[in-house]
């Protein structure tokens, strides 16, 4: 499929832009950003999310620490120049979490950084715009937050049918391995009145086809995307150390 080939090409491009930003001195959470890069790129370049007048609508990046991927997409789409991004970082307008109000280019619709909020916010948006899909990408560790479950039960009880929740299931939280957590057991999620899909979060064709089906679905959907923290940088993949810390720049330069 031409569109899938194009998305695959874009993932490589965005990854390079992202790594270049890091090598040039921009501090991002490398592992958690790379685990969801393929997902975000597919959502945007697969046209599941619309960008109107430089605004990315109906999407909440709950794991705000992965904002570097959105910055890289903005650069690729020529919404912002990397020079301007760095200038904003220098004067303190942009930091390590997604924050739209100090940033003049309101590319994003929602602030994030505190985990566990986005499902409830998506519910509000989905009630306000019943004919549109509201999409949120959450980390797997944030499923511990009670507000995630408050939101999931509300969607299930009230039959809210236009929300897509993508879980970046990289099995690593900021400080621990979490693959055995009970609240991430798919059988538990299946008891809710929400469709569940499980995919390989790095297989572009599978991500694209799943989203295509979901966008025609009449129910809200949880997509459990199995991913690898630090995907694509062999030296840091699945390594707990690189949740916050950056590796030597010489390692990253090899991938540029």
């Amino acid at each position, binding site marked *: 499929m031409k569109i899938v080939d194009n998305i695959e090409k874009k993932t490589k491009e965005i990854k390079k832009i992202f790594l270049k930003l890091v090598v040039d001195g921009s501090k991002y959470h490398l592992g958690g950003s790379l685990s969801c890069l393929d997902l975000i790129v597919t959502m945007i370049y697969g046209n599941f999310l619309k960008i109107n007048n430089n605004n990315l609508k109906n999407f909440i990046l709950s794991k705000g620490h992965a904002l570097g991927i959105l910055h890289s997409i903005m650069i690729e789409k020529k919404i912002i120049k990397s020079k301007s991004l760095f200038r904003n970082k220098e004067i303190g307008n942009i930091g390590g979490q997604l924050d739209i109000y100090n940033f003049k280019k309101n590319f994003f619709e929602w602030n994030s950084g505190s985990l566990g909020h986005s499902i409830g916010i998506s519910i509000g948006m989905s*009630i306000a715009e019943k004919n549109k899909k509201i999409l949120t990408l959450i980390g797997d560790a944030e499923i511990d937050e009670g507000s995630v479950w408050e939101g999931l039960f509300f969607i299930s009880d009230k039959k809210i049918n236009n929300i897509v929740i993508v879980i970046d299931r990289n099995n690593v939280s900021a400080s621990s391995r979490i693959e055995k957590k009970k609240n991430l057991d798919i059988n538990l999620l299946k008891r809710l009145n929400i469709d569940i899909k499980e995919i390989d979060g790095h297989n572009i064709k599978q991500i694209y086809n799943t989203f295509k089906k979901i966008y025609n679905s009449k129910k809200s959907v949880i997509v459990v995307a199995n991913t690898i923290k630090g995907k694509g940088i062999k030296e840091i993949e699945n390594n707990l150390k690189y949740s916050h810390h950056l590796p030597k720049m010489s390692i990253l330069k090899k991938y540029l």
Partner: protein
Amino acid sequence: MNLKNLDIRDVFFENIKNFFLKNKDFYILTNDADVFSLQQIKNHERFIDAGVCEQNLINIASGLARKNKKVLIYGFCNFLCHRAYEQIKINIASMNLPIAIVGIGPGFSFPYDGPTHHGIQDISNILTIPEFEIYNLSDNKFADYMSKNIFKISGPKYIRLEKGVCPTNFKKADFLNGFEFIPFSKKKETLIITTGYFSQLVEKSLQNYKNYSLISLLKLKKFNKKKLIHILRKYKKILIYDENTFYGGISPIINKIIIDCNLIGKKIYYLTCPEDKQIFKYNTERSKILDSLGIGGIGLNKKLKYINKS
């Protein structure tokens, strides 16, 4: 609506209900709290009872407001302000959404329910969030005015709503100033500064003693500071009288003004809810709890006697 004999909650929510029925973009959300005037609309699709989950409630409200809906949330002030503080701070305030949070049960207005329901620290929580304005409603006319104008006021709002039949002293000019000033005495000796239900209590408790003047704060942030300072300068003794704790209520607000405007030479007194430990007091009557804490009418009279002698 005859404002004189109605419970303040009925005054407020009756107007809200009328606005709701006329405005298709208006949503009301609650955490399973019951209000008499809203019973008629409880099954409406724009009335969202999120259940007993305040975090989700605030998140849903935020999402609606971000999509340009008008949103009012009501529930017990404690559960909203304490349980969902992060959501209020990040999702409503940092997004600067024009949501109205209506906190019922301020002070000891639900006296039998103990510290879980005593709203004596909610003000301080919201006070620390810069984007929020706080309104303290304990006057039926003020409640009528606020409920009719609530969405003309931009930004996030926290509205504390008393219960019971309240006075009707409010004037529109007071809203612009953000406080009521009642100079009972021509002598510029003692000024009592208070807010909410305690404004009523001052007048009730000091019926035979008029040697004081009263300021009742209606807004707790964006009031007319210049005018307030002008009044403060005239008085020798200032008593801050508050149902909330010292740090949980209006005392820090007034203290800041006193320090900023170099009014340190004044004699400042406090009569506020004690806060050396949490208050596990239960009574079916609010006045009895207040008296047991030394901050009711008896305590106020004692304090004024002490102030007069000093």
